[in-house]
């Protein structure tokens, strides 16, 4: 059977990481095509339901990335995100998600190369961890109810 | 010192400075130049008592000497009232031209040189190369031409000094000259386009650095051959000797066959004008030019 191709959901901020990802593009840096970017104004906007939801919808890993500390376009959004992340991290295992499936990183608008390698790392990590199926059951139930 | 100024004899005849080569190893050039001139009714008067221009040996080792040797020839021409001097050897003519330019540019150099050669030189002598000569008398030539060269494919090879240094010789385009082609066309020959027109053949190294001659001339010969030339037309004794006398050695060394006759423009002009081959010294080349049946 073909090698397992993980699906990665990336929540990134417009100002730093999204721009960094664009830079990777303009510099034609090749990287794993497994990532699906969801653009938000700021990492501060990230509600961690997003992450849970992503796993439920078949993501095998989630990447959260924004401006470096101190560089937030909104001065403090990324600090809030980081604070929430530290709390949320502990909840992950409780929610049945290996913490390794979620990666939190800083990528600035100038770090196209960093973005490319980051995506590759996360993809590799997810490959090793294998598909995330725990929530598929929930989906099936949900769909079952929908039918009824 | 002051010198007796002879009263110039008025005449329209053309001055002629053959130089050493044309009196010796390249005498066929001399012969053919004279033959063509005679055919055209043009009187060539050789500068009386001319001396060697010093050639590369001169300017290479003593520029002042080189300048003075040429200046003497100019001064003689002036005395003998020869305003335009046909100088078939490009090296000779370049030397005449640069000497004239140098003294014209710098009065101090001039007075020094005049002291040295014990003659005064007022300027006003113009040296022309053989292509210029043909170009000037193109009408006369064309009017006398029947079948001419009958489409003989000729690669026109200028070498270095016909067009270089441009500031001194001021003749045609230094990188891509076309005047010889025009003459050949007028002679009803067919100039072939080739890319080594102004490459160096090894020049004065014929004797002293044959290796260089083999190497440089090979490229020219092969290139002309590839361009489909039947002959290479030249207007320089050094080029002729290198390409002709060394051709056998080149074929031997590089295991190639060329068999390209190297003929003077004057010889081609002669042929086109229907002058007898013997009178053009065509038999005097290492690679002789075959008779072309109609």
């Amino acid at each position, binding site marked *: 059977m073909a090698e397992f191709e993980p699906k990665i959901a990336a929540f990134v901020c417009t100002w730093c990481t999204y721009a960094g990802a664009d830079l990777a593009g303009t510099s034609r840096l*090749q*990287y794993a*095509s497994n990532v699906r*970017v969801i653009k938000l*104004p700021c990492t*501060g906007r990230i509600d961690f339901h*997003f992450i849970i939801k992503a796993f439920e919808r078949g993501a095998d890993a989630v990447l959260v990335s924004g401006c470096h500390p101190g560089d937030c376009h909104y001065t403090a959004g990324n600090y809030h995100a980081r604070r929430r992340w530290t709390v949320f991290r502990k909840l992950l295992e409780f929610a049945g998600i290996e913490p390794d499936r979620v990666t939190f990183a800083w990528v600035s608008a100038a770090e196209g190369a960093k973005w490319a390698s980051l995506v590759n790392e996360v993809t590799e990590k997810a490959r090793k961890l294998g598909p995330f199926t725990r929530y598929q059951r929930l989906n099936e139930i949900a769909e079952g109810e929908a039918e009824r | 010192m002051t010198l007796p100024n002879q009263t110039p004899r008025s005449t329209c005849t053309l001055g002629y400075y053959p130089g050493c080569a044309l009196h010796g190893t390249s005498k066929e050039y001399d012969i053919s130049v004279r033959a063509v001139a005679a055919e055209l009714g043009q009187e060539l008067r050789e500068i009386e008592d001319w001396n060697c221009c010093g050639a590369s040996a001169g300017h290479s080792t003593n520029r002042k000497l080189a300048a003075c040797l040429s200046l003497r020839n100019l001064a003689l021409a002036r005395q003998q009232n020869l305003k335009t001097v046909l100088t078939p050897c490009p090296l000779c003519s370049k030397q005449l031209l640069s000497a004239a330019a140098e003294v014209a540019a710098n009065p101090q150099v001039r007075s020094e040189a005049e002291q040295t050669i014990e003659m005064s030189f007022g300027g006003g002598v113009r040296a022309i190369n053989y292509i210029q000569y043909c170009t000037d008398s193109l009408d006369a030539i064309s009017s006398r031409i029947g079948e001419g060269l009958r489409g003989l494919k000729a690669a026109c090879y200028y070498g270095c000094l016909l067009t270089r240094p441009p500031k001194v010789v001021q003749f045609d385009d230094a990188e891509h000259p076309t005047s010889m082609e025009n003459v050949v066309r007028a002679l009803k020959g067919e100039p072939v386009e080739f890319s080594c027109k102004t490459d160096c053949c090894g020049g004065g190294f014929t004797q002293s650095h044959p290796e260089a001659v083999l190497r440089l001339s090979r490229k020219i010969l092969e290139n002309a051959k590839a361009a489909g030339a039947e002959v290479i037309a030249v207007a320089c004794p050094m080029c002729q000797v290198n390409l002709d006398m060394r051709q056998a050695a080149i074929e031997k060394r590089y295991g190639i066959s060329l068999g390209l006759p190297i003929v003077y423009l004057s010889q081609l002009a002669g042929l086109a004008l229907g002058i007898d081959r013997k009178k053009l010294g065509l038999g005097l080349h290492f690679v002789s030019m075959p008779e072309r049946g109609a």
Partner: protein
Amino acid sequence: MSRIGVFICHCGENIAATVDCPRVAREAASMPGVVHSVDYEYLCSDPGQSLIKDAIREHRLSGVVVASCSPRMHETTFRRAAAEAGLNPFRCEMANIREQCSWVHADREQATRKAVDLIRMMVHKVARNESLCPIKVPVNKTALVVGGGIAGIQAALDIANAGHRVILVEREPSIGGHMAQLSETFPTLDCSQCILTPRMVEAASHPNITLHVYSEIESLTGFIGNFEVKIRNKAKSVDLGLCTGCGACTLACPLAGRIGNEFDRGLGKRGAVYIPFPQAVPHKPVIDRAKCLRFQAAQKKGIPVQDCSVCGKCADACPIAPRKAIDFSQEDVIITEKVGAVVIATGYELYTGGRPRPGDRYAGCGEYGYDDYPDVINGMQFERLASASGPTQGRILRPSDGLEPQTVVFVKCVGSRDNAKGFTYCSKVCCMYTAKHAMLYRHKVHAGRAIVFYMDVRSPGKGFDEFVRRAIEDDDACYIRGRVSKITREGGKLLVQGADTLSGEQVEVMADMVVLATAMTARHDADELARKFRAAYDKDCWLTEAHPKLRPVESATAGVFLAGACQGPKDIPDSVAQASAAAGKVLVLFSSDELQREPLVARVNRTAPPQYSTCTGCFACKAACPAGAIEVEDITDKAGNTVKSVARVNEGVCQGCGTCVAACRSGSIELCGFTDEQVFAQIDAL
């Protein structure tokens, strides 16, 4: 039921080469709510845009997804197109299948599949987009210019001459910046101060310009058109109102001529109370409290300086009566100003050429002996030597013994392009000023020998290369292609060990003086400053422009513009040009009384009574909001008594980061354009 149109751009070969656009179009056609799906060569072209407009009208589209380049490239283009076709611009979204797909993935199958996914996610989002109308905010037509060098002065004058108020802030006691230190300028060799000082005076005396020297920016808050800036006026210990600038105090100071003068790069001396240089504007002294005997004594004793009896000669010497202009008790003052636009023109710092100082971002150079040999100086020091107003009145005399150097070696690229030392960039101006230095030296010392070690000669610019050739051909500057390895002292001379890469030989020069063409660097506190202004900066801490080609004078933050060398190494003409360009941008902003902002702001929901709003009034959002946009709103009943206090977003202030949304416990705040519904829809479509 929404009617969505999907438009896939080939971008010539840029996308089509790796993404199978027709197939993507086919697959998109079957996505929920999609009624129209096409692919096209160049959607950003005129025909491309009209293709979209026509489709919107023809298929009565309620939403549009343009799959092409990054939204950062063309979002405005396509939203405008949508609007022209009568569709609310915020119902148009882009799927980035170029920068983040076709350009970064080689495999056609994978790239195509990813493109489909990205489009599906956007389709799901757009189905939930609502019509939004732009927010209008007033523009405060006062500009803040930070930095009083040539760039700052130029920008301030341009804006002020257009009739707007300008607040010009300079950290040093005088404006003028680096240009005031230069002797003559390339390639014209006209006197730097002669052309600068009139501008300095004009700026200081301009009715529309408020000048704050010896001052620094504390903080900047707010947003384009409506910033609020706090400026710290550092205590000068001199009452500028009273002081006439007579200079009596500077002569009276017991330390006069004993402290290295920053303006002369240590080659000249000053006192504790000093006027930085003769042409200073304003021409008023300040007291250097770190050096002043009285202040130091007071500090030691731990008493207020005005109670201290030490020295005070400056005050005694001050002829102003009855109240002296010297005011030891003066303290820093923080003033607040409201401005609509900001021009950052904070310039650069020159790397000394020596070992690193604490806090330097780069490793310095020990091999040139800058810290060890007084006769090894840097370019700016040479400028001071060559300057008529400098410590040697313009005579080239070496610092150690004041003798005229007969052989001077100029070393280019000291720091610059020295990756190991932490500089990867070219400082741009050194090639030119080194040629100028060699020239000036040869003009002043006719028998002297000028030897220049270089790696390249970079002289693009009007008359620049001609200038360099003049130094080499007419003034006999001997240019050696190669770096210098080390400089050591041999007797009274400096032994320069270099290389001549053209001949492949080692080179030795016995020099009397060495001039290092050292790198231009970002200010040591550039990153801190950038944060204050929310401007981005690169790895070398140069402030970054919004777009390297198309938006060279705008920062990442709307309303904050860049001028001069704070953005990267620049010469005078470039700095002035950029300053005027920045001023032009400010004037465009000031040309209208109010400006439109994207309505992507937060919104607290309102529901029918009795609930009024799901907001519980915990105000976690207020704590989270970095812009201070959350206000408290008391909801009253008919009788006018407060039913409950809920949060309200001041959409004029809200920057739309959405931090409040994530912070809200009751899920009562939405961020327009990025509502939970929209984001979850995207995730759903993963």
